[in-house]
């Protein structure tokens, strides 16, 4: 219960203001179909540089929470998920909006997100300390395998692009080698003065996520979404709460599934939302009502996808393995404040105050998200009127601004632009950006632990024995193999299905 003593730090004027602004910004980003929660967090990482670690992380946590929930707005009102996590929300949310029940659908989405988010944060609060204690037993070999595992899970869930995902992760690790060697100080791959200090996390994050997105928005400037008419009605909140009281099974199923899926690195909110929706539909007495505008379907999806937010932080804070691409970006936020995932984050003599203020802030952020979500429900249609054209311009300015102000260097802006351009070209050939980003973040950790482990091994049991024997090493290697194997299995299954569909056609 010592952890609760840190929660008082959240209730400062500054932190409450950060939570409020973060929640507004998150909903704004989430409601725009072109901007994902990952990009929202990536764009904000540099601004946390001017804050203390706890406040900076609170801002990122609040934006992450609200952006995932905010994705429901467009999913419901214009049948386009604002965030991938809201795909299942569309199934019933959009028909509800067409039937003139858009406000009710939005209230169900935000209330469901509140419940799911709270469950996820409670899991985060209680599961992280024991896992962090386990991480304390890790030596260089285990830490090396943990980084490899992180890459394999993100690559394995790159939507049928396993090999390209793995390639992206390794390329990211190689990009992180640009500049001086962390152990020996020798410069590597410095083809121009711009690269002397290596590739910093922030320019990489912004470049890899924002530039391809900006150029995609430019490609689609002519596309305009069909907007649904929306008129606020009184008494909807009361009805929503009554509905949730009738759905204990949906809430329990959604939050448990969301929490478990959130803990599994790489799975993410979209998987949780879809599985929860599917399970709630299958166990319902009236499955035929789903897809026709059933608010229970909206609740099933939103409870589950919001549960993943807190749960995704569990492997992140304890082992440095992000539970989602957004958590991977948050890892960058932790590292730029000098916080390394693991037991130190929970040590009262080190960073426990920052960590528990952050977790407590995440708890409070759920209420901010819900309140602001209800409020914005009335005006959300106007957010969606912002054109791709204006969004592309504004995001470019923010990307340049965010990159420059980290170290007041145009070199960083150039690196951001070059990486972004490369990623845009890569994305046209099916290379996902999340593994590259994670590779850049985890690369130095992997290299340092590999070289350190090699040095220890050469004076001890030998390199092979050091890295490939020992219970924890074997477990981690097995997890890497399983992660790749599962990705491969899913890819082959999808290919066979498309082949069968082709034959039928």
């Amino acid at each position, binding site marked *: 219960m010592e952890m609760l003593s840190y929660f008082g730090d959240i209730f400062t004027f500054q932190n409450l203001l950060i939570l409020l602004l973060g929640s507004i910004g998150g909903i704004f980003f989430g409601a725009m179909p072109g901007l994902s929660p990952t990009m929202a967090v990536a764009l904000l990482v540099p601004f946390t540089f001017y804050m203390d670690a706890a406040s900076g992380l609170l801002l990122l946590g609040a934006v992450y929470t609200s952006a995932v929930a905010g994705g429901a707005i467009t999913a419901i009102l214009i049948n386009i998920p604002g965030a991938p996590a809201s795909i299942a929300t569309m199934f019933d949310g959009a028909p509800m909006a067409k039937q003139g029940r858009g406000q009710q659908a939005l209230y169900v989405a935000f209330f469901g997100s509140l419940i799911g988010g709270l469950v996820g944060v409670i899991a985060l609060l209680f599961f992280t300390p024991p896992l962090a204690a386990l991480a304390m037993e890790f030596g260089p070999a285990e830490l090396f395998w943990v980084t490899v595992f992180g890459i394999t899970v993100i690559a394995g869930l790159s939507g049928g692009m396993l090999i390209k995902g793995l390639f992206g992760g390794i390329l990211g690790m190689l990009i992180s080698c640009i500049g001086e060697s962390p152990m020996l100080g020798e410069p590597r791959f410095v083809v121009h003065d711009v690269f002397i200090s290596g590739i910093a996390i922030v320019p990489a994050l912004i470049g890899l996520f924002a530039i391809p997105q900006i150029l995609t928005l430019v*490609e689609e400037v002519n596309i305009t979404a069909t907007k649904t008419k929306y008129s606020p009605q009184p008494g909807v909140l009361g009805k929503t709460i009554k509905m949730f009281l009738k759905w204990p099974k949906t809430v329990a199923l959604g939050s448990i599934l969301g929490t478990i899926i959130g803990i599994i690195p790489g799975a993410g909110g979209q998987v949780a939302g879809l599985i929860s929706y599917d399970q709630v539909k299958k166990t319902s007495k009236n499955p035929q009502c789903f897809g026709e505008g059933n608010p229970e379907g909206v609740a099933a999806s939103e409870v589950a996808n919001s549960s993943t937010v807190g749960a995704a932080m569990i492997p992140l804070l304890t082992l440095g393995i992000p539970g989602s691409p957004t958590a991977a970006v948050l890892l960058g936020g932790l590292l730029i404040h000098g916080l390394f995932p693991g037991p130190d984050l929970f040590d009262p003599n080190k960073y426990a105050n920052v960590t528990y203020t952050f977790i407590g802030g995440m708890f409070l952020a759920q209420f901010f998200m819900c309140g602001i979500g209800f409020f914005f429900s009335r005006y959300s249609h106007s957010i969606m009127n912002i054109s791709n054209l204006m969004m592309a311009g504004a995001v470019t300015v923010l990307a340049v601004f965010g990159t420059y102000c980290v170290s007041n260097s*145009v070199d960083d802006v150039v690196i951001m632009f070059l990486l972004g351009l490369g990623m845009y070209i890569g994305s046209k050939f099916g290379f996902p950006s999340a593994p590259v980003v994670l590779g850049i973040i985890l690369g130095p950790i992997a290299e340092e632990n590999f070289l350190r482990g090699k040095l220890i091994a050469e004076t001890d049991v030998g390199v092979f024995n050091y890295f490939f024997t020992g219970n924890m090493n074997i477990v981690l290697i097995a997890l890497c193999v399983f992660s790749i194997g599962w990705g491969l299995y899913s890819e082959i299954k999808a290919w066979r299905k498309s082949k069968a569909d082709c034959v039928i056609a």
Partner: protein
Amino acid sequence: MTAKKEWVSIGLMVLAALAFLFLMRDYEGSAILFPRMMVILMLCLAAIKAVAEIVRMKKPVLNIDDYAGEPYPWLRIIFVLAAMVVYIWVLENLGFYTTALLFFFLVTLAIQNFKRTPKVIAVRFAYCFGFILFLYLLFSVLLKVQLPKGILV
């Protein structure tokens, strides 16, 4: 993704690995050990991808990508990329807020697909100016963030 695109992506994979291999030709010792391992893994993955593609070619699957959609807006993308380069180039000379305003206003005006009437231009400028003013008040006035001032602001 079409088979042609997949082969181009394999080519890109090999090219990226070879580029790093070329850059590490003068290095020796532990500093290059980890990058060398990564390059070998990249080449292995490119080889696996090539084998998978050969297998896939024997049993082709109809792809949505095989159908021609809207033509790719080359001109628009090249224009925006060129504008970004100019934006970054003059950032420190002209000042952050001036270049940001010019980029935002001119680029969005240039790539829009509807008529540029004086009213549209005035409204667009007001939007862009409002956005930049918001950034200025938040970051320069409130948070005192250091930004390039250049000859203007």
